[in-house]
């Protein structure tokens, strides 16, 4: 027995060394789940993005999440609209990849083609669907993107395109190569991923020399680790644990809502939908089940989003009126007593179960016949995406995340009659979405906010609940303020050391 | 007055049991000196082993409890000594051997080590201990002692195991050897050998031997003095001769009367068609032939005794006849029709005609059923025998027939003594109104007095109901007053077949003669004679 202990010790010695013993200016970051891949073209998946985006791989443009500069240059120095359908990007010079090769227009083209290739399923490619985009190299440091139809927000779209060297094969890689300030130096599957600072980075060298990523499923464990000094940053911990002065909350750009399928009675009746909305005492959740700082939502996108409509006001909690509306509907023969299935996803967000339980009991109070069912992710998907369950009215509790600053990433998909998760089929909405997508400047802003208003006030498309806040715990010897983007990326360059 | 080597004075022990407090022995006293052999004679439950356990400090307390008395060894009261002191005596100055050596030897250690352990437990160095062990194994007559040292108990025969036990007990040349039923589970011939081995060893070492037994024969053969126990009391004591010829206490007389092989022998007088013909019956397990072609006939109302030592194949015959095992060859004709080849279904109705009474009544009765259920099950299986309405009366009738009370019908088997259980088993067999009952060692597990009663019962049933019996036994005296014909078996073969008179009065085969000679007689004088015969035989045949 003693022996086996010794062997165990020996075995351990060979495994990844514990963060506690790593040298100075090294930080340890504890995440919820280990990424399956560290693949630049998958960077839109948050657990990958947090490691890759801005650390290993860079993009042509990036969205300013701290100030309000909007879209900032990164690998592109500048861009302009050559004609309606063509954008021209001037690329930064003297940039090298971590494998030593220099960065040029060919790399950008390859990165784009690779992302779009049908031999691998790159997540980021989904942002370029429905549009014909052809990159063409003008010279070593200039590249044109021709789009059909015109794509006003192409530069924004390109803030998602991670650049890889043109040598990169078209298959998923486990050794990502990028232009970023860090390079992946070690990956002990199941245990940790380590990034080392590059000396030949084009920009200014960040303070952190080594970043160690570890993975713990349980939020309270993550919190505990920072407290115990085993980790420096836990980007997302449960609100319940966020009680120390190490903890900072941040709007995490997630919006929770109940998706309503308008095609099934009684939810096809507007009064019923309104009753749903005013039957839920949203305020009561804030500071109780959900963290302080949680906002009641009036739109699927967060206020910082382009065209967010400040005039739409959340409907106040009014059980009496809700009851009345139901009575009224009932009088007109709407089958309001039909059992409505409320589908929630276990562990979707901290306190998810409690939230849905509370909603169920509130709605039952005002006279709905609600059955709650919490399901695991795969089952949730069955309800969430088309084709929908038609045999009974269903409310799907879900979360939507769009930190990209433009509603285009949400609207088609959630509200266009063709959208995979749209609960409505509304001609006017469809029209607004198409027009807004093509529009630019103030027109675009106007159209989006019209859409927001229309969906919320006229259609009552769904029961919008909250703009959520996330909580990060930051250890005492590092400085880091989480932002709305912290959900999807975590740039080590933004971490300061004390 | 420590004039005896070992003296038990006014010893009382009681046990707390499910049925309340049982006084196992009440104020018994006896003594034992160097070189002499004292026999404690008694039947199960008489408490004959209790004083021995007390001496060896083997009574678990609770449930046991010594309420009064002294055990003086060399004049010192053991009961006042410390656990440790008593441990030091055990195995060194007082040793004990038990019935059922297989259970009492540790199955997972080599016998050599187990013997040596006695010495090592008392501080002898390893090599010396092993040397002694080897010497003793040689002395008690284990073949190829060196190799046997590393063998395990299950690799020895019953007799050899008892020899090993003896070796284990004598490693340190104790002053006293307690032998608790040392030969009960053994074949007659082996029993004789073991007993004489004990005597020789006693002469060599001059130890005192305490012999606990239920068998008058053993007493007659080996004891200098004997005490007779019943129900926890010593009812009588004296030399074997005194006890045999001038028994005072009724219980002693009862015991003597019960000893088998004293009554009148029967002469078979039937010549009509046999109901059962067994022809060239064979059974082999793989390459080993357990039964090598057995033939015999049985007439209605007759009794055939099949006698042989363990491994002779006598029980196999029964098991084959009753389809408990498939036969490898031969025929069994029951009332003219061949039954070995019958399917279970065809066999069904026939089964009620052929019944069996097993050796161990404790195991052959389902502990979860009441006596009523056990007996009436026969009619559940064969409804045509008796309408349900009459079951109750019939059960009562049967119970009375086998000498039990009707009200016993509601009890469970465990509430009866061994003998009573065997009576129930018989009642169960009778319930089917069979033509033939096979008794497989049906009485060998019972006390002598009970044995006699059960045999008497069977005889009575035979005469009254005209049932034929096949009576399987391992020693001859038991069958002497009961059987018409005797079949002597050895190693799967019939050695000798004849009428009971012929077998007992003029045995032709050497093996039969040896069997007879080895049987112990309760009359010391007869026994002395037998002994000389036995030795003579051994000499001639060796």
């Amino acid at each position, binding site marked *: 027995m003693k022996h086996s202990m010794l062997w165990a010790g020996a075995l*351990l010695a060979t495994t990844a060394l514990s963060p506690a013993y790593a040298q100075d200016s090294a930080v340890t970051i504890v995440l919820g789940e280990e990424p399956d891949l560290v693949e630049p073209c998958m960077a839109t998946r948050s657990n990958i993005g947090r490691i890759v985006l801005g650390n290993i791989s860079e993009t042509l443009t990036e969205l300013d999440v701290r100030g309000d500069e909007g879209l900032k240059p990164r690998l592109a120095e500048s861009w302009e609209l050559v004609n309606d359908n063509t954008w021209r990007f001037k690329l930064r010079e003297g940039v090298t990849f971590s494998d030593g090769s220099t960065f040029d227009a060919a790399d950008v083209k390859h990165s784009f083609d690779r992302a779009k290739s049908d031999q691998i399923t790159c997540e980021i490619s989904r942002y370029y*669907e429905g549009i014909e985009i052809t990159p063409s190299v003008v010279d070593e440091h200039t590249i044109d993107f021709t789009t059909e139809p015109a794509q006003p927000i192409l530069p924004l779209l390109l803030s998602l395109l991670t650049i890889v060297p043109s040598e990169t094969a078209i298959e998923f890689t486990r050794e990502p190569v990028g232009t970023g300030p860090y390079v992946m130096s070690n990956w002990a599957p199941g245990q940790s991923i380590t990034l080392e600072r590059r000396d030949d980075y084009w920009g200014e060298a960040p303070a952190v020399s080594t970043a160690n990523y570890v993975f*713990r499923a349980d939020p309270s464990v993550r919190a505990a680790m920072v407290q115990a000094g085993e980790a420096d940053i836990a980007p997302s911990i449960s609100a319940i644990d966020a009680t120390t002065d190490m903890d900072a909350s941040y709007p995490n750009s997630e919006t929770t809502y109940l998706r309503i399928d308008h095609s099934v009675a009684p939810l096809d009746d507007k009064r019923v939908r309104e009753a749903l909305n005013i039957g839920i005492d949203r305020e009561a959740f804030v500071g109780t089940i959900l963290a302080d700082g949680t906002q009641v939502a009036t739109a699927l996108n967060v206020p910082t989003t382009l065209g967010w409509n400040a005039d739409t006001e959340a409907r106040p909690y009014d059980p009496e009126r809700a009851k009345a509306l139901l009575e009224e509907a009932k009088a007109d023969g709407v089958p309001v007593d039909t059992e409505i299935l409320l589908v929630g996803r276990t562990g979707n967000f901290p306190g998810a179960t409690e939230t849905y339980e509370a909603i169920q009991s509130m709605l039952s109070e005002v006279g709905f016949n609600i059955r709650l069912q919490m399901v695991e992710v795969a089952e949730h998907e069955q309800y969430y995406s088309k084709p929908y369950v038609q045999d009974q009215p269903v409310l799907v509790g879900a979360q939507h995340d769009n930190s990209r600053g433009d509603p285009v990433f949400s609207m088609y998909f959630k509200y266009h009659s063709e959208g995979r998760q749209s609960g409505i089929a509304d001609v006017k909405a469809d029209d607004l979405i198409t027009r807004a997508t093509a529009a630019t400047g103030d027109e675009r802003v106007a159209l989006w906010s019209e859409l927001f208003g229309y969906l919320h006030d006229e259609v009552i498309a769904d029961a919008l609940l909250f703009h959520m806040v996330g909580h990060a715990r930051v250890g005492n010897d590092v400085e880091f303020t989480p932002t709305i983007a912290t959900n999807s990326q975590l740039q080590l360059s933004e971490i300061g050391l004390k | 007055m420590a004039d005896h080597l070992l003296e038990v004075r006014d010893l009382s022990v009681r046990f707390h049991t499910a049925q309340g407090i049982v006084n196992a022995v009440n104020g018994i006293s006896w003594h034992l000196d160097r070189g002499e052999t004292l026999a404690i004679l008694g039947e199960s439950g008489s408490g004959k082993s209790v004083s021995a356990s007390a001496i*060896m400090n083997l009574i678990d307390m609770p449930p046991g409890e010594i309420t009064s008395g002294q055990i003086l060894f060399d004049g010192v009261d053991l009961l006042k000594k410390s656990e440790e002191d008593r441990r030091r005596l055990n195995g060194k100055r007082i040793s004990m051997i038990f019935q059922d050596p297989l259970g*009492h030897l*540790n199955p997972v250690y080599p016998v050599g080590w187990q013997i040596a352990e006695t010495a090592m437990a008392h501080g002898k160095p390893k090599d010396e201990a092993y040397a002694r062990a080897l010497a003793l194994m040689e002395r008690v007559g284990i073949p190829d002692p060196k190799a046997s040292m590393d063998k395990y108990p*299950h690799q020895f025969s019953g007799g050899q195991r008892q020899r090993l*036990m003896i070796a284990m007990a004598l490693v340190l040349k104790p002053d006293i050897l307690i032998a608790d039923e040392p030969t009960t589970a053994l074949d007659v011939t082996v029993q004789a050998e073991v007993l004489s081995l004990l005597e020789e060893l006693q002469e060599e070492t001059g130890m005192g031997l305490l012999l606990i037994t239920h068998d008058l024969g053993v007493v007659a053969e080996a004891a200098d003095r004997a005490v007779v126990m019943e129900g926890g009391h010593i009812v009588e004591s004296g030399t074997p001769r005194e006890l045999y010829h001038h028994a005072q206490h009724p219980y002693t007389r009862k015991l003597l009367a019960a000893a088998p092989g004293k009554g009148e022998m029967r002469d078979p007088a039937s010549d009509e068609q046999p109901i059962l013909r067994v022809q060239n019956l064979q059974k082999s397990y793989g390459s080993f032939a357990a039964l090598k072609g057995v033939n015999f006939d049985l007439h209605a109302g007759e009794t055939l005794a099949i006698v042989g030592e363990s491994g002779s194949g006598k029980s196999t015959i029964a098991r084959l006849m009753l389809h408990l095992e498939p036969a490898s060859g031969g025929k069994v004709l029951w009332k003219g029709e061949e039954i070995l080849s019958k399917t279970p279904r065809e066999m069904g109705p026939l089964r009620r005609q052929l019944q069996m009474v097993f050796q161990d009544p404790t195991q052959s009765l389902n502990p979860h059923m009441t006596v009523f259920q056990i007996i009436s099950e026969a009619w559940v299986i064969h409804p045509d025998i008796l309408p349900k309405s009459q079951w109750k009366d019939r059960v009562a009738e049967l119970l009375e027939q086998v000498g039990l009370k009707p009200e016993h019908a509601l009890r469970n088997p465990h509430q009866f003594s061994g003998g009573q259980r065997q009576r129930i088993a018989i009642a169960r067999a009778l319930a089917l109104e069979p033509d033939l009952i096979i008794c497989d060692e049906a009485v060998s597990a019972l006390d002598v007095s009970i044995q006699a009663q059960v045999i008497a019962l069977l005889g009575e049933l035979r005469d009254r109901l005209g049932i034929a019996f096949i009576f399987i036994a391992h020693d001859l005296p038991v069958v002497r007053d009961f059987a018409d014909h005797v079949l002597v078996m050895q190693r799967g073969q019939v050695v000798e077949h004849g009428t009971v008179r012929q077998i007992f009065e003029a045995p032709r085969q050497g093996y039969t003669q040896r069997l007879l000679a080895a049987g112990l007689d309760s009359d010391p004088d007869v026994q002395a004679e037998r002994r000389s015969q036995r030795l003579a035989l051994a000499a001639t045949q060796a």
Partner: protein
Amino acid sequence: MKTMLGKRAVSSLISLFVLIVMVFFLSRLTGDPAALYLPVDASEEMRQNFREIHGLNDPVIVQFGRYIGDLVQLDFGESLRKARPAIDVVLEAFVWTLWLALITMALVSVAAIVVGSIAAFNVGRPFDRVASVLSLIGASAPDFWIAIVGIVVFSVSYGLLPTSGTGTVWHWILPIAVLFIRPFGLILQIVRGSMINALGSPYVKTARAKGVKNRPVIFVHTLRNAMLPVITVIGDQAAALLNGAVVVETIFGFPGVGKLMIDSILQRDFNVILAAIMVTAIAIFLMNILIDIAYALLDPRIRT
């Protein structure tokens, strides 16, 4: 013995095959991996493309044929999510589980046997009572509950041990402690029971009559006989651990096969599930053989 092992190997192979068949087909009834792998707003052609790449479009029976075909060449297929050979992923994780199981069972066996024997020798006395009650309390508590309380107390409040993860010997203490509790309680009871029986057996009487001291009576004469039933139980418990201690591994971020299993089940990473099942099944088979050997070593009656 050898022939017996042969038989065992064959029968185990049969069950393993049946197992694979069942898992393969049943798991494919539980939804479309594409839906889980791809982001919710991925388009239909993207999903089609994904299924195409991973051959999920063919009829299941065809997929099965292909799988078995590869399997006979010891190709366990690729992990859907990790873009690596499934078997590598599994073996990586299995090493951890193996160590966890080995160390835990070693500790459990020794502790349970010693305490159990002493308890059996003092049936009904305080030691016996305390031992069984304490072991019971431990064995009755939900393991995730113990685990988290353990972290809160030992790591956060007193900072004695690392909360979780791997790295040093210290990291192993909490997980092992949590895993230890339940089998300990169970085996303790078995040991106690079978010791009580063994202590009542004739050969113990003989040993006493020989004047053997109490200690050897318990630890030499009785224990070895009492071990026979215990070994089987130890085997079962070890098997359970080899299947992966899901809860513990999840909480302590221990990269074992249990966590891998639950993850790949929830993500429908079929190849990994199958590979994991096969690896553990084989490991358990080998362990059972060890158990048999141990049995034969303890009990000469089985050898001959």
